[in-house]
């Protein structure tokens, strides 16, 4: 087997050195009833040629986004990732190293994380950020738990504009940690009424919201703070912060965001990278790892993982979270891509996305029977169709257009959303793609 460096001779020699007559002896602690000679009815080892053939065959059964006019968003966005990003994250020193617990052997990863944390803080307009969580949805659940720890209050109010997956993950976590979650109904296009009381630990909103709508949450932030509650702002399309007023500037206390849009491919939903930013005053309540600056024996600047007393490996059941492995390499990809973009690149990228979405919105809204629901948006918006959106999505796919997300896929129980279609456009969308889409849609609705 190509990955196993021991030869039969090595094995014999080593067994002898150990003083065992057979490998089975080393498994003697395994109850006899549980020992197996091997596993039946499973394929045997295969070479690279065979494995590559089999997996390529599976891959070929999927329609790659890049091969068709593509307009799906809903929390994962198809952006261009420069070739340099993938080249660099594949360097063995990044790819095959462990969590940087030995700082003297991991200054590369640690400095990159310190840069990542700074980028996330700048982007969200917050004071500090951590070294990543699993994804945006779990980051959101962690934010709610953190608000609970800080305020010692038991209720979290979730805006109806929060991504349904985020809402569901918060609900799942809360259900077990004994938190009460009040999830408001989705009301695309309509400003929702959010009530707070002195039991409210936090309010969770999203910007732009799940239906693409942009809102200034400053007033809500003020109300939260009056009430002693925290405002948590979720961001599912991180590129939007290249053009949109950041949560920090709206008075958010915690930002939980999905970082996939920068540096990471669609990957059918994972791995992604959860971004988590907060105010400095709450730093000791932050979940996950933090890279911090320090000095070495010779007084030179260096980096370490710090404030570990928050974490499970030190604090165990009292830790701020149970997270250990996070999204290191995805965070690195994020950091590299954002380093490449820089201020000029990111802001222009965001403007390109917005321009493409405006262009698309105009084209699609011009199709007879189609109504644009979202008032102000970044690169994604919602349409009302004269037919069920799910049906439209299916027929469009048959015509070779991946036209968006039917709200009903995420809200099957909400008949009032059956005709709602979510459509996104990024810098990857060409004029030709937009033409194909509006033509196809017009045809369907004709």
């Amino acid at each position, binding site marked *: 087997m190509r990955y196993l460096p021991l030869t039969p001779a090595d094995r014999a020699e080593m067994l002898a050195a150990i003083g065992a007559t057979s490998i089975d002896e080393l498994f003697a602690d395994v109850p006899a009833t549980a020992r197996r000679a091997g596993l039946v009815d499973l394929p045997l080892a295969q070479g690279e040629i065979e494995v590559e053939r089999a997996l390529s065959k599976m891959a070929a059964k999927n*329609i790659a986004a*890049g091969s068709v006019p593509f307009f*799906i968003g809903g929390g994962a966005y198809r952006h261009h990732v420069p070739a340099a990003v993938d080249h660099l994250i594949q360097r063995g020193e990044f790819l095959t190293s462990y969590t940087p617990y*030995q700082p*003297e052997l991991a200054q590369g990863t640690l400095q990159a*994380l310190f840069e990542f944390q700074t980028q996330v803080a700048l982007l969200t307009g917050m*004071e500090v950020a951590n070294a990543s969580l699993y994804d945006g949805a779990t980051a959101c659940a962690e934010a709610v738990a953190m608000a609970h720890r800080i305020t010692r209050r038991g209720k979290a109010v979730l805006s109806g504009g929060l991504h349904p997956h985020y809402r569901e993950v918060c609900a799942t976590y809360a259900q077990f940690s004994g938190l009460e979650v009040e999830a408001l109904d989705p009301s695309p296009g309509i400003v929702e009424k959010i009530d707070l009381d002195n039991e409210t630990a936090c309010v969770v909103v999203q910007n732009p919201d799940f239906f693409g709508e942009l809102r200034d949450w400053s007033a809500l932030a003020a109300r939260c703070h009056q009430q002693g509650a925290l405002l948590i702002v979720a961001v599912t399309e991180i590129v939007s912060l290249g053009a949109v007023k950041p949560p920090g500037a709206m008075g958010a206390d915690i930002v939980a965001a999905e970082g996939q849009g920068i540096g990471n491919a669609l990957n059918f939903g994972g791995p992604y990278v959860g971004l988590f930013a907060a105010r400095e005053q709450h730093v000791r309540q932050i979940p996950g790892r933090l890279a911090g600056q320090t000095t070495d024996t010779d007084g030179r600047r260096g980096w370490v993982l710090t404030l570990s007393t928050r974490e499970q490996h030190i604090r165990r059941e009292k830790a701020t979270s149970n997270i250990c492995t996070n*999204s290191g390499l995805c965070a690195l990809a994020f950091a590299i891509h954002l380093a490449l973009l820089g201020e000029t690149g990111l802001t222009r990228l965001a403007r390109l996305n917005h321009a493409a979405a405006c262009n698309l919105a105009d084209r699609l809204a011009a199709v007879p029977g189609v109504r644009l629901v979202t008032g*102000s948006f970044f690169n994604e918006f919602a349409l009302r169709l004269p037919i069920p959106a799910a049906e439209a999505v299916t027929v469009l*796919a048959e015509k070779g257009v991946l036209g968006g997300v039917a709200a009903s896929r995420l809200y099957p129980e909400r008949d009032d959303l059956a005709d709602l279609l979510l459509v996104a456009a990024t810098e990857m969308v060409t004029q030709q793609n937009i033409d194909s889409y509006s033509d196809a849609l017009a045809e369907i609705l004709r």
Partner: protein
Amino acid sequence: MTGWSQALSAHPAPTEDAATLTGNRGLQLEEKLIFEQDSAGLSGVDLPEPPVHKSRLGGLERREPIGLPGLSEPQVVRHFTRLSQKNYAIDSGLYPLGSCTMKHNPRINEKMARLPGFADIHPLQPASTIQGALELIDTLAHWLKILTGMPAVALSPAAGAHGELCGMMTIRAALTAQGDARQRILVPESAHGTNPATAATCGYAIDPIPNNARGRVDLAALKAKLGGDVAALMLTNPNTCGLFEDEILEIATAVHAAGAFFYCDGANFNAIVGRVRPADLGIDALHLNLHKTFSTPHGGGGPGSGPVALATALASHAPLPWVVHGDKGLSLLEHAEGLAARTIGRLKGFHGQMGMFVRALSYIMSHGADGLKQVAEDAVLNANYLRVRLAGTLSQSYPGSCMHEVLFDDRFLKDTGVTTLDFAKSLIDEGFHPMTMYFPLVVHGALLIEPTETESKASLDQFADTVNGLAVRAKSGDIAGFHAAPRLTPRRRLDETGAARKPLLRWRPESPSREAAE
């Protein structure tokens, strides 16, 4: 050996670092933060100027500069190349971090994960356009079910700890469904920190159980603690002392007899994959770390993937989404309805770590059933070989053979003035990554060594010779040399206490970082 002490004394003063004008030392290159390399206006990405159009941002335009630095592509490539050169990795050498299973990461897995058919598909595409993706998930699940012997596997957890959470939630859901409100989780003192942390996250109280003198769960103590309020036992097997819980069947029986569930932390599955099926041990739920046993790269801290195998009693509570076979081929069950009516709900956005699934399946298919069994055998063989090679100088915590990793404590350093930390740091100068230190907590100054099956005998021998040589030196009383270690890395020992006292977690224009960098 002789040359060594002499050399140690000849060890250059810290000021040697002034020996160059640049601070660079040959191929070891200093590198500032990107924020300290800002050239306003530069970008490493060329994008067309957007067509003029009326903004629909509803007055929410971002007006203040973000503060991101401008660099060209050459600068960014050089920056991250230089940073990478300050890292140690499996690709560089032996990485015997106990409990982390730092094995070789095959590159074919990386190539497969990047096929557009896997990397460039959206989680919300219509099922008809992602049949291959669902087939891959289904195939991986099939393998994991057979390898664990368990009827169901939940693939969405993002890492081991997330898998633990998933498992504990299903347990709690099952109990709740029976109207049973048990509150306590038994967790051995040797458990990894995520175990108690997870139980707490799941709203449970933790009740620690001691190890016996043989480094296993003290069965008597366990039985004593088992009772009507115990929801589950969270046991790691093979455990974090590198030992197989040889009374595991009795443990399972006792746990079940008490009406509790048996959760197993499968992070150490590498020791038994293909040879032992957790189902045969009476386990009800167990998570696997694809980024350990199944070689998906650890990436300097993640991403990982932590599928959970579930017994029948728990399967119906598995988190969303489920992959189901239907008349139109495979599809995703994404809501608490039908088959999935009793799910605990969603644990994560979308459907799990697809990129890791591809890598893990590529790894599994490459090994096949026969190869995986060999993996477990070689992993255990390598660990035991190191055990005997080091037995003479280090102090093994529990006598006898071990599984995939071997545990030592700091008795061998007694009265030397050298600590476990010093000892580990001195390995760094020798070109090795240290073993896991001070974990598990059940022994003093733990040194947990896991070589994995992808190390050659020559590599193990060099490591053993070095560790033995260092042990001899420690006993010969060269404390200074050990305190000074590491001496040869880009940075020497870093002040972690200082870092925590006054946390500096980001660069700021006016922050000391800038000065420090000049």
